[in-house]
């Protein structure tokens, strides 16, 4: 259940300073709703964020940002009118409502349903992480990590360490009676570094975070582990030789390589593309689109995860949605608008970057469930191929199904053994095709460390990915070395 505590915090943050009352907000929604309006909502948001950056062994910069405002939306059939204001005051709200409503001809007001709270989750604490460490302690953590990693290896020539946090409160009031409130902490710690040896420079990067406070990075010296991991990657890359070019078996490591699923499957199953019938997965529910070893979910209900939400940005509680079960396409991811137009229900995937953007169907935490195979066996089964364990980003064309994702740490596999490291290379494939070629799934499901950002239609939102070790029988590796 959404606690009254959360609603109280949100009201205090968003409405109290403005003096706006429930009656006034009802009035705005009444003005928005009309005979031809199917749905209208108000989205109040306030975000306090900070970041601290250490570079060249000094605390180089610190910043504090405040953004608050309200988005006003009215929909009628396939039409949506949208306006927003960064002054949360009655005249601005009424003006935005007038603008949003202008997509339909004026009509008589009709009643708005009485507000009721939907049962939401309690996946994270309603805390302000920015105050979970003193400024001195934030700075000291950055300094200690920087000194630690520079001392660990003299080949380290450049280190950037950063700590960032966000305290966001949101309030959704909708004409369908939904009232949703959420307090969303989000923190992140990153280490990127450059090593140099015999004139060759290589980079390493590691980080993590989630919906909790800064203490997380102090537990078990996690911040120092990120630094170790960044150094390890950079040193591996110092020895990397040219990556191969062409199709070959590819073993993907557990965790962040799940970006494969985000690109190859995830975007193609978002409701807007499927309502328009322009996804390679459109109209294919119930069909086999992956090998029967593949069960893929989008789960917004994991405690503390970066991609998790108690409620989505339309007030709908998030769910654990099965997208593909044993290779069969089961569900698309829906926001309210696309669900209504397709005669379905929202799956709790309506998300927006901020009050200044319209909600659209988005992923939360997307991952493949564990299989039966021992990861060692998976590698041992490959005579000649690639073992890719770290990636940068990816991209997909949801209409043709073509997708890419770029490896940043990879090794050759020769006769079932992990061999020499190779340079980063882009892997390219066709979503539905690649998943039918998944021939082994490991028992080592791992989620990423909490660094994912997904961009769509110019909107960025935090997401998570994950997977166990996988064998794809054939993927095209975009290296520079011809295969003999």
């Amino acid at each position, binding site marked *: 259940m959404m606690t009254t505590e959360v609603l109280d915090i949100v009201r205090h943050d968003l409405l109290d300073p403005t003096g706006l009352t429930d009656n006034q907000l009802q009035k705005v929604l009444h003005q928005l709703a009309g005979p031809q309006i199917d749905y209208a909502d108000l989205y109040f948001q306030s975000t306090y964020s900070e970041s601290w950056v250490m570079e060249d062994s000094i605390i180089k910069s610190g910043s504090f940002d405040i953004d608050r405002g309200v988005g006003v939306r009215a929909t009628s059939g396939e039409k949506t009118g949208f306006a927003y204001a960064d002054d949360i005051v009655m005249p601005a709200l009424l003006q935005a409502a007038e603008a949003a409503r202008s997509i339909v001809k004026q009509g008589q007001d009709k009643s708005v349903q009485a507000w009721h709270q939907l049962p939401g989750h309690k996946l994270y604490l309603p805390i302000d992480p920015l105050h979970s460490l003193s400024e001195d302690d934030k700075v000291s953590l950055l300094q200690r990590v920087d000194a630690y990693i520079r001392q660990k290896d003299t080949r380290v020539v450049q280190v950037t360490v950063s700590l960032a946090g966000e305290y966001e409160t949101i309030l959704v009031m909708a004409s369908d009676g939904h009232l949703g409130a959420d307090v969303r902490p989000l923190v992140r710690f990153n280490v990127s570094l450059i090593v140099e040896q015999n004139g060759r420079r290589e980079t390493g990067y590691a980080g993590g975070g989630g919906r909790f406070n800064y203490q997380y990075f102090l537990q078990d010296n996690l911040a120092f582990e990120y630094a170790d991991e960044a150094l390890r990657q950079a040193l591996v890359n110092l020895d990397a030789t040219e990556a191969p070019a062409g199709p070959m078996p590819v073993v993907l490591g557990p965790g962040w390589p799940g970006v494969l699923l985000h690109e190859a499957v995830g975007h193609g199953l978002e409701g807007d593309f499927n309502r328009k019938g322009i996804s390679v997965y459109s109209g294919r529910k119930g069909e086999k689109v992956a090998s029967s070893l593949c069960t893929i979910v989008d789960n917004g209900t994991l405690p503390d995860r970066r991609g998790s939400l108690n409620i989505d940005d339309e007030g709908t509680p998030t769910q654990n949605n099965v997208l593909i079960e044993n290779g069969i396409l089961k569900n698309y991811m829906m926001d309210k608008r696309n669900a209504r137009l397709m005669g379905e229900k929202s799956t709790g995937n309506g998300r927006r970057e901020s009050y200044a953007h*319209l909600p659209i169907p988005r992923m939360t935490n997307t991952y493949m469930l564990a299989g039966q195979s021992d990861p060692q066996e998976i590698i041992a089964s490959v005579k000649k191929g690639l073992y890719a364990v770290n990636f940068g980003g990816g991209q997909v064309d949801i209409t043709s199904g073509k997708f890419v994702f770029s490896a940043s740490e990879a090794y050759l596999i020769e006769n079932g053994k992990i061999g020499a490291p190779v340079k980063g290379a882009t892997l*390219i494939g066709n979503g539905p095709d690649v998943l039918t070629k998944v021939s082994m799934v490991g028992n080592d499901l791992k989620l990423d460390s909490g660094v994912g950002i997904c961009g769509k239609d110019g909107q960025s939102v935090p997401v998570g990915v994950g997977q166990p070790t996988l064998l794809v029988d054939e993927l095209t590796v*975009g290296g520079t070395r011809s295969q003999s």
Partner: protein
Amino acid sequence: MSEIKKIEFNPATFEAMAEEVLREAKRKGASEAEVGIAFNKGFSVSAREGEVETVEYNQDKIVEIKVYFGKKSGSASISDLRDEAIKAAVEAACHIAKFTSEDPAAGLADKSELAYQFPHLDLSFPWSVTVEQAIELAIQCEREALAIDQRIISAEEASISTIEAWNLYANSNGFSGAFPYTRHDMSCVLVAKEDDEMQRDFSYTVASDPSLLKSVSLIAKEAAERTVRRLGARRLPTMKTPVIYMAEEARGLMGHFTAAISGGSLYRKASFLLEHLDKQIFPAFMHIQEQPYLSRALGSAPFDNDGVATRDNVFIEDGILKNYLLGVYSARKLGMKTTGNAGGAHNLIIRPGNKNLSELLKTMQKGLLITEMMGNGVNIVTGDYSRGVGGFWVENGEIQYPVHEITVAGKLQEMYKNIVEIGNDVDIRGNIRTGSILIEEMMVAGE
């Protein structure tokens, strides 16, 4: 349909606000301060299936504040322009400066470098189009595109947007400058289908002056042609082959060059062009220059993010790197002078050659024409380059068939040296202006 009320567009208000920020910083004990204010308003509409789908009204404003206490700095930003909010933001920036370190390179531009006198540039051309008219244009665009070829099964959307904006920068060395600009665009995204294959593509036009926008009919036609011609796409065998980056994708290729010569990459030793000043980067026929004062150009600006005058920098002359791209901070880190590039280059012009695209294809004879790129497999530290592409296979100087699901890979250092020719088909829709680029050879991975 009613229109949103006009928001007061008053640079004098923002100038007063900036002055107040600087005064407040001084009251709080800051030795120096600077403030940037960006403000824009406009709307965008999209149409689909003969009807309006979305109407979005935009109005964004942001105030970015940086204060210095000697060589220690703190920053804050805020979207709320009420007095007390701005005071709180200055306070927050001052608080942060207590915890940052002394940074010898920190601080405002020297007075001698500030653009106290800057030219007026013709960058603001508000579009008189109403929301209703924009909707009609978008609907017309979709209707015309769908009628061109029956294999086009739907439009993802046709959209129009228009923005009027102001940029203001002021600092405690007495600089205060503001300039208005506009940006209008129209785009059409289509999906074509034949048998089981679906392909998506688009066309767009963008300009500061609405009279420079391409017509609705032309955008519809281009979008339709681009989408339909992708049908029947095949893969290519893995091989080495000559490659042409079509102008719109060549822009990205040259964008990696600007990233590599940017001060931020250089002082972090995060560039494959470290210590390359006066060295040959490109073939001798290549020249790359910045033209920040071009009238009606999207990248123009009279001063940079430090308040320093922008200028006609020459970066590449006869293929040789003549200048880095520096702001005040990165220049100090490198022991050099700012080039007026805090925030990047303004209209980077790659000098065009004299062949159009079809003549360039003839020169290549056989190879890959790249019209689409995917992913971000580019490492600026090492120059390693590997990206997904789509395009066309060319033989006998003529396009043979569309290709997709392949990658091209190489090393930027070598790709730049191996540029054979630049076309005259310059794409002016972005901040980097280049024609199509022919590269002698790259590795293609496919079947």
